[in-house]
């Protein structure tokens, strides 16, 4: 199994060439791969604590016609940690290998939360703006949630070709973008909110400004 871990001290990648090839083939076939335990336990615990300290604000997705609403993490330390860890060169190279997207130069994401029964919905979209090449979603929820299933469909058929509920805290899903693909996340159900750091690998470099950490996102 391909092992990738984002830690405070370093990024760990333990993947034999053959296993990396299997992961790459799975991504090509399914348009997605799961990265179990992407966050080391101390990073996950820190992030889960810190997002509550940083706090959330309502976000309206104006670019989608149904204008769905969710909660977005306010700029702060948690966002800054993810900006640094996900832009580690070793990790970016791993993602380039798996996706075959050699143009990837950075990751920019945002922590957001969808609360069950709060009208926090999603709509089919493809994210193909601003040099976005692929998506990573890391589950930061405090416990497993219900609903919140990632779905990918092919166009023009509309056939759903991938579904995955990434309910395990610390696990991540890496998935593809393309003209012939759309994705959405089904509404969360039950009582546990779905909190993720989700964003895009892009073809532009990123470097945070020196000073007080903002999200950079």
């Amino acid at each position: 199994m391909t092992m990738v871990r984002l830690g405070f001290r370093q990024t760990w990648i333990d993947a034999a060439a053959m296993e990396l090839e299997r992961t790459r083939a799975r991504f090509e076939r399914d348009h997605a791969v799961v990265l179990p335990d992407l966050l080391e336990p101390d990073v996950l615990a820190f992030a889960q604590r810190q997002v509550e300290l940083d706090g959330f604000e309502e976000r309206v997705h104006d670019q989608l016609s149904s204008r769905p609403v969710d909660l977005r993490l306010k700029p702060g330390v948690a966002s800054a940690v993810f900006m640094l860890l996900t832009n580690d060169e070793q990790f970016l190279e791993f993602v380039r290998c798996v996706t075959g997207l050699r143009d990837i130069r950075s990751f920019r994401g945002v922590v957001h939360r969808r609360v069950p029964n709060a009208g926090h919905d999603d709509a089919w979209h493809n994210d193909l703006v601003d040099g976005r090449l692929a998506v990573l979603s890391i589950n930061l929820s405090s416990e497993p949630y219900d609903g919140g299933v990632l779905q990918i469909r092919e166009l023009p058929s509309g056939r759903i070709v991938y579904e995955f509920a990434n309910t395990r805290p610390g696990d991540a899903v890496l998935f593809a973008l393309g003209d012939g693909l759309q994705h959405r996340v089904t509404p969360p159900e039950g009582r546990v909110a779905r909190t993720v750091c989700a964003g895009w690998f892009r073809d532009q470099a990123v470097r945070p400004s020196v000073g007080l950490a903002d999200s950079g996102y």
Partner: protein
Amino acid sequence: MTEVSLQTAVRASDDVVVRELDGEAVLLNLASGMYFGLDSVGTRMWQLIERHRSLSAVVAAMCDEFDAPAATIEQDVLRLVSQLVEKGLVVVAR
């Protein structure tokens, strides 16, 4: 400004997260939420600080690698380390 000298030894703070982005280090202080960016020379100093801890050893290594007067390198290392101590990114080793 915190006083440091060639006799000082330092280590990275437990609160610092470091990554190199495009070959230049970015340090994040988890306690204060402050970023601190280093240029390529500062990044090399940081790598040597993590390896040697002793500032006299850092200066000696820098003198081996860079074509600059030893006094200039010594001044640059001490100035950078003073800033890193001020910002809580390194602590004086005991």
